[in-house]
């Protein structure tokens, strides 16, 4: 085909099949068409480079913006976490703190108790010393009583 095309370009009397003729006609048309031979202005190279540079800078700026937004969001999240943590710490401060003294049945025992308020009610933390170790399945109990000695829980 190439050789026949070549000869077509030299000698238009050569016979081709339909697709070859169409292609050859298009080739001859394009070879005679100004846009095929056209040259862009010498300024176009700089214009292209400048346009790509601008697009590149815009993308970098956009990425930077996203990074900054992400960093800001992270900072806000961290701040929120800190507030929650502080609040939790604040909540974690005992509502009551008392020293425990032993009665006559266990004169060597001593300890402290802290009462925390929580969403579900109260939590009591006991730190007792000098209490004899209990055998398995037995526990010490803590009772809260008001100033009048009435049991609260």
């Amino acid at each position, binding site marked *: 085909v190439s050789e*026949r095309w070549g000869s077509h370009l030299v000698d238009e009397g050569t016979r081709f099949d339909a697709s070859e003729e169409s292609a050859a006609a298009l080739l001859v048309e394009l070879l005679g068409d*100004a846009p095929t031979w*056209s*040259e862009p202005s010498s300024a*176009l190279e700089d214009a*292209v480079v400048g346009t790509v540079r601008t697009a590149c800078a815009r993308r970098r700026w956009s990425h930077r913006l996203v990074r900054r937004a992400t960093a800001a969001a992270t900072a806000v999240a961290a701040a929120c976490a800190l507030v929650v943590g502080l609040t939790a710490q604040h909540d974690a401060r005992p509502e009551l703190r008392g020293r425990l003294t032993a009665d006559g049945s266990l004169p060597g025992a001593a300890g402290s108790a802290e009462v925390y308020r929580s969403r579900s009610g109260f939590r009591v933390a006991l730190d007792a010393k000098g209490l004899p170790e209990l055998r398995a399945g037995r526990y010490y109990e803590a009772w809260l009583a008001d100033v009048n000695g009435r049991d609260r829980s």
Partner: protein
Amino acid sequence: VTRRHPADSSDRRNTIDAYVLEGFRRGEESAVREVYRAYGNLVYAVALRALGRRELAEEATQQTFVRAWQAADRIDVLRDPAPWLATIAKNTAIDVHRRESRRETRAIDSVSAEHPALVTTSPDLAALDAVWQVRQAIDALPPDERAVVRLQYMSGMTHREIASTLGLAIGTVKSRLHRAHGKLANLLSHLREVVS
């Protein structure tokens, strides 16, 4: 960096290595220039064929390279980027053509029936493919052969007129044309597939 416009180069090349494409991806100026020097003429020729106006063709050429850069992350740098870039060039030219077709200018009554603006047919995609390939083949010719082909087809000159214009013997013109035709035919044998 030595700046050389493609129009001035005698060793035009339409190939780009992977290293340059990597730089193009990163938007490095030297790489963008190199890709433009390799393909700028082809993109511009396609755009001018589709749009018919130099300023629009230059705009489409700029857009083509920006779109190519934007999409460069998705290309395989080890493969020839020409088909990919040709597709972007065609689509961009068609987009600009559509945009311009929608643009209102003035009342149709005030335009003569022969005015080219009245022709609003879309660019022929196959012809745009062919422009790319023909231009690529032309750019691959040595400058002396390119000159005689241009005078024969673009300027419609006879062998004698070409010889006179270039100050050559008529036999030299014929032999250069013969060589050029053979190369064009070889380079453009796949044009048949585009047409069919």
